[in-house]
Structure formats: C-alpha cells, structure tokens
C-alpha cells in the first residue's frame, strides 16, 4: 500500500472514530468515575495512603476479568471477596510453601481450584490460597501476587509508589511524555501474576483519572491508558479498521503489541481534541476515545455493535446503525471460529 493510500485509510478510520465519539463519547466520564470512586471509599483511601482499602478495591476490579460483569458480581456477592487483612494474617502465620515468602518467590504457583492442585503438592494441605472462595484459582494467585507486590515492591504504600514512579518518569520537555508516565506504572504492574493488561489499564485509568484531581501526573498518565476488551477489538475488526491498517489479529495480547488495537486507537485519539467534548478534558485523551467505542458497542451502553445484535457469520446488515454507511461491515467469524463478545 502506498504512503498516500495508507494516509487515506487512516483518515477514514479517524473520521469513523470521531463520529463514534460524537455519538457515544461521555462528556461526564471523569465526574462519573470520581463519584464511583468516592462512593467506594477509594478517594479517601488515596488521601490517607490506605493500602488495605486500595488493595480490596483493586482485587475486586481484577475479579471482573474473563467473564461478564454481572456473573462476576453475583459470584462475589454469594462467596465473598478477598481482603488485604485476611491475606496479611495468613502470611504472617508463616505458611510452609517456599513460594509464599515474597513477591519474587511467588512464581508458577499453579493453584487450580477445581482440581485442588498446585506445583507444590507437599504444601497444599496447609496453603492459605484455597481458603478464599474466589471464582477460579487464577484469581487467588492474582490476589496473592498483588499483595506481595504492594508489600515487597511498594513497601506497603501503593500510593507513595505510584507518586514516586510518576515523578521519576516526569521529564516535561521529552516527547511521548504521557506514554512514558503510563509505562512507568503499567510495565512493573504487568508482572503481577494473573492480571491482564486490559484489567490493569482499566483499573489504573479509573484510579489515576479520578482518584485525586490535585495529582496532575496521575491525570496525565490515566488519560492515555486504554483498555482493549473483546467489544473494542471486535469493533475495530467489524468496521474494517484493522484490515485497512493491515493490522488484523486475533483478540489477546497482540491487541497491546505494536500496530495492535491499543496503538491504533492511540494514533487516532491523537487527532481528536477531547476538549471539544468537555473543556476540562486533556486535548489528547485516548481513554475517552476508547471508552466511547466501548460504550457504543456494549449492551449496557448504546448496544449498537456486539455479538447479540449482529450475526457474525455474515456482513452486518443493521441499516439502523448510525455508522452503517461509514462501516466496512467485515464479518467477524465467517467460518465460525473467532471469539464472542
């Protein structure tokens, strides 16, 4: 593809996403997040550097990965949530498993809930992980890995750690400043076992954007954190944006790789001045753009572009869709072998 036609394809994609922002962009995004975090005690936890309250919120947010929100929520309502104080007490009791000594030891734990097994079978009977009735063993591992990260890497103060990481990455004149701020947090936290990039970006974006407006670096970093879920990925596929950008890929880690969904959305977001939607927004606001795409698609949003509305074996025929004429309407799974959303 020539550079000229590549540019034309990009302009088309940017135009389509701009239209989505006009239809589904949420001008009160930060206000809504602020209210939600306030209601759940996260804003006061930030002010007081209350690590246990933040952990409890984070680990609950992580529990929403891999399944519908209502299913995850119902499960937690029925079976309870894991809390910092519970894990701290169990670790203080000195479990025998060698993997439960520190963040750096907690590797390849392999706990599987249904099979009741792990990679240290001699210590399984006395292991504290199975004492928490979470939806699957991966979530138990994620909770312990996050606990160890905060205790050992962040020295028990997650807020102080975030402040320090952002201050160290803050070089005002350098290019790609916001991305560097984001990466200063995402890269270390991405090593926590069992926490997907999507969930990490989503939780951190909310925390940083709306946790404390006086922390300017937080807002800057949160604005560029993009969460690519199947809805967002499938939208980019169905509309033909991935195909026209020569970036077709299956949903998964590739969405965050170079030329993946995240990078494409970032490039498009750079052409959209979010201040037109709310003057208080930063001009470059990829999270707002990604949220608009998600809201356009989601059943709990505008419910326009998802697997329940579209028969993905063929091109979409929903003429009532507000972007029907702009969209390439690429069949998501013509051979019935791709992921659902």
């Amino acid at each position: 593809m020539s550079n000229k036609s590549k540019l034309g394809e990009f302009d088309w994609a940017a135009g389509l996403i701009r239209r989505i922002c006009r239809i589904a962009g949420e001008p009160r995004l930060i206000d809504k997040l602020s209210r939600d975090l306030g209601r759940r005690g996260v804003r006061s936890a930030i002010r007081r550097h209350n690590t246990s309250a933040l952990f409890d919120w984070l680990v609950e947010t992580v529990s929403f990965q891999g399944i519908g929100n209502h299913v995850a929520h119902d499960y937690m309502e029925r079976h309870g949530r894991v809390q910092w104080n519970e894990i701290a007490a169990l670790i203080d009791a000195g479990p025998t498993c060698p993997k439960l000594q520190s963040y750096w030891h907690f590797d390849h734990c392999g706990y599987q809930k249904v099979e009741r097994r792990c990679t240290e079978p001699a210590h399984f009977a006395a292991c504290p992980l199975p004492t928490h009735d979470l939806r699957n063993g991966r979530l138990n591992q994620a909770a312990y890995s996050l606990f160890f990260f905060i205790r050992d890497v962040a020295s028990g103060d997650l807020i102080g750690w975030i402040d320090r990481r952002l201050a160290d990455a803050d070089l005002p004149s350098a290019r790609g400043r916001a991305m560097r701020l984001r990466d200063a947090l995402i890269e270390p936290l991405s090593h926590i076992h069992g926490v997907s990039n999507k969930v990490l970006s989503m939780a951190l974006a909310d925390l940083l954007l709306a946790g404390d407006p006086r922390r300017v670096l937080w807002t800057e970093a949160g604005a560029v954190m993009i969460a690519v879920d199947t809805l967002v990925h499938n939208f980019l596929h169905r509309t033909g944006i991935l195909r026209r950008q020569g970036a077709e890929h299956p949903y998964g880690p590739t969405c965050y790789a170079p030329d993946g969904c995240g990078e494409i959305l970032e490039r498009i977001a750079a052409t959209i001045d979010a201040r037109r939607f709310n003057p208080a927004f930063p001009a470059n606001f990829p999270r707002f753009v990604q949220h608009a795409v998600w809201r356009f698609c989601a059943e709990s949003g505008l419910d326009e572009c998802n697997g329940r509305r579209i028969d993905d074996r063929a091109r979409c025929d929903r003429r009532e869709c507000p972007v029907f004429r702009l969209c390439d309407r690429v069949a998501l799974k013509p051979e019935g072998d791709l992921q659902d959303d």
Partner: protein
Amino acid sequence: MTEPAPILVVLGIDGEGKARASRFAERDAELAAKASALLGFRFVWINDEAGCAIAESLPQGNVFARVNGFIRLVRQSVFEKLSAFMDGGVATTPEQRRSDDR
C-alpha cells in the same frame, strides 16, 4: 584515564543448580538488593575495568519480574569469571562501594 562507572550485578546459583547473573540500573539498586537477599543471590557492584567489561555483556535484569525474569541464565564460564572478580575483593554492597569511593 577515567575509571568505569560501577555496574550493579546480581548473581548466584538457582534451585536447579543453574548459573544466573544480570546487571541492573543504579536506580533499581534498592529493590535488586532486597530481591537478591530474599532469593539468596549475591548483589555486587563491579567497579574495575576488566570486571565491568564482563558485566556489560550480561543480560539486563528486571526488579519487577519474578525468579526467572529477575535474573537470567548465563553461561557457566561467564559466571565463573564474574565470581573470580568478587573473590578478588570487589565491593559487595552499596555501602562498601561508597566507603571505597571515599
């Protein structure tokens, strides 16, 4: 002739008897020291020219990664050369390094 900048190295033998070593950035010294102490690896500042030449060839470690990602596998010959420098009186802690600098 200027002395080379000291290089922070963590090295040791893992639970499977394999040689591991990595270099770390100075800003990661505190966490590298903590992790290496917990995992039973050795934490050293290499500050002579010949030692730095070997240390520079080591893979970069990652203080946020666990076990295998924290320090990497290296060839036994490289490990032995590095060990020789340590036994030859290389400072083993930042405090020692600082006192050596005075």
